[in-house]
């Protein structure tokens, strides 16, 4: 430090760096204008004193309102599904350290108020440990929505599917024409996230081509090395080489379908070596018997019957797979992780939910974690990510809210909720 300027610059930098990047609080734009000015601790305390009774009253009102809302749902089919009906279980709460056992960034597709959008108007890159939004990306014109997202294992490469208009769930035919159109092709973009600068770059993948609406894209999964993209086309699976654009196709010759109806996460999953691809296959019969099969993608294309049947339901104890849920293969290929359900056949149809690991070799149950019990039909659990061995998973759990689910890390049968996860129906690590 020779000059005065150098000494000043160094002192200022050191002082500034007392504030770390991770400690920046979120922006709250809707908070009211304060009369108490910034830094006025005395007036802040004064206001807090005045507001405490109001806050207490508001809390009581909120509890009463929530109780009424919950009791209101009991008049319908979900009457017995609430906490009052004996909801119990779920893994005990874990510590924040669990959040560091999973990839540090994820991408979620989020929307405005249009609940029937099966995707999002924007993609947000968020920090797993804090939920902070690190980058926000919108589909370039003329595309209006991202519909699927999947990530590579490097935690910075994601693939986004985009369509021109909103895909709409069945039953929303009355929606405006601009949001009703599900008849446009799907195109693919690569999202490259740079953590050091918190920036994201979007590149259109011309080699991936387009998926026509008639092909019914029902899910996709990026291989761990980011070079290949698997597409679920309901009656077939395509694996596209993103460098050359070449593709292999395997068709399902029987009845039923491949994949699931828009689960909260990825419908296909890869082993770490990028060779095996796990997928759901539903029989299409009255009982909708589901299976998980594992396809060797290094083999020539052809029939999906060449894939190995890994797990089939129902298992012993009437345990089955139900609803729009994911099933993931652990990257080491040893296990299939699935959210399973056991429902009694007699009223009030008590339901047990759990995250179950199956041996990929024998199809038998290895262990069950995170059990929930409801007095009737309950909400869904889901599995969103697994560690290489399946020992740590990210799941969404029906805990903490009267309705809806909470994503969190399940490790050692302890559940740690992820902070500030947005309302989304597509998320990827």
């Amino acid at each position, binding site marked *: *430090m020779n000059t*005065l*300027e150098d*000494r*000043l*610059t*160094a*002192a*200022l*930098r*050191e*002082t*500034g*760096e*007392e*504030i770390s*990047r991770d400690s*920046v*609080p979120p*922006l*709250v*734009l809707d*908070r009211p*204008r*304060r009369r108490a*000015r*910034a*830094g*006025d*601790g005395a007036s802040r305390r004064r206001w807090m004193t005045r507001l405490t009774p109001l806050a207490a009253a508001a809390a009581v009102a909120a509890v009463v309102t929530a109780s009424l809302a919950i009791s209101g749902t009991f008049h319908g089919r979900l009457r017995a599904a609430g906490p009052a009906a004996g909801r119990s279980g779920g893994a005990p709460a874990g510590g924040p350290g669990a959040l560091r056992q999973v990839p540090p960034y994820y991408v979620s597709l989020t929307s405005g108020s249009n609940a029937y959008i099966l995707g999002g108007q924007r993609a947000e890159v968020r920090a797993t440990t804090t939920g902070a*939004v*690190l*980058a*926000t*990306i*919108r*589909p*370039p*014109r003329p595309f209006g929505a991202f519909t699927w997202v999947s990530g590579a294992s490097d935690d910075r490469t994601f693939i986004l599917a985009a369509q021109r208009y909103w895909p709409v769930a069945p039953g929303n035919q009355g929606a405006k024409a601009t949001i009703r159109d599900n008849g446009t092709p799907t195109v693919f973009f690569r999202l490259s996230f740079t953590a050091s*600068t*918190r*920036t*994201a*770059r*979007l590149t259109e993948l011309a080699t991936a081509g387009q998926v026509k609406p008639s092909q019914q894209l029902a899910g996709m999964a990026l291989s761990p090395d980011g070079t290949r993209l698997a597409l679920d086309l309901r009656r077939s699976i395509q694996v596209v080489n993103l460098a050359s654009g070449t593709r292999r196709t395997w068709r399902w010759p029987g009845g039923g379908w491949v994949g699931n109806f828009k689960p909260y996460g990825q419908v296909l999953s890869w082993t770490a070596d990028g060779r095996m691809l796990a997928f759901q296959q539903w029989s299409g019969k009255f009982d909708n018997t589901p299976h998980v099969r594992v396809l060797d993608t290094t083999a020539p294309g052809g029939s999906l019957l060449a894939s190995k049947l890994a797990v089939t339901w129902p298992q012993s104890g009437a345990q089955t797979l139900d609803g729009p849920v994911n099933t993931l293969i652990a990257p080491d290929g040893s296990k299939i992780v699935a959210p399973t359900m056991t429902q009694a056949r007699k009223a009030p149809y008590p339901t047990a939910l759990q995250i179950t690991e199956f041996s990929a070799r024998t199809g038998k149950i290895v262990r069950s974690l995170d059990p929930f019990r409801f007095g009737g039909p309950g909400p869904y659990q889901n599995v969103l990510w697994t560690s290489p061995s399946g020992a740590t998973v990210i799941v969404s759990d029906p805990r903490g809210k009267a309705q809806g689910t909470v994503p969190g890390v399940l490790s050692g049968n302890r559940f740690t909720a992820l902070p500030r996860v947005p309302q989304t129906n597509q998320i990827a690590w």
Partner: protein
Amino acid sequence: MESNPRGSAAAFAMAEHAAPGGYDAVCAEEAVTRLYEAHALGLIRLAHIMLGDRSSAEDVVQEAFCGLYRRWSHLADPASAVHYVRSSVLNGCRSVLRRGNARRALALTGYQPPESSAESVALTGEERREVTRALRRLPQRQREALVLRFYLDLSAEDAATTMGISPSSVRSAITRGLASLGRMLQESS
């Protein structure tokens, strides 16, 4: 080590790039949020340097962005939003200091010495304390000019825009501020 205290130009450019369609296509909330993501760290650090108090610094920056959000529709040029919010932060710091919190805010807080030898720790900490203490004894205009010039690395023209004075006044304030700072440091040593 965060090497670029401005933390802004590249991030801001990329944030714009990350949203095809740019400012015209996004609503005020998203634009301000994106601006916050790109600049909050640098501005909180700036306010922290000016105030010496972290929570006050965060409040000032929050208020500045809330003000920007409220006035977004009146902003003639969205590209000037960074200058606007930086000026707001400086104004907010002045208000905090003016209201008699200066003595409390100027207290040095929370410094964690680097892991090194005891001697260098003592020297480094003392050096920084001396410089910071001297800086905070300067008149407001000189202090702001020095921080904008030597922390944010702004040109005299950009600092003038932020401070709402002429570039020549900024240069003059820097010259006088450095001279006073040198005298104070010499006296203390």
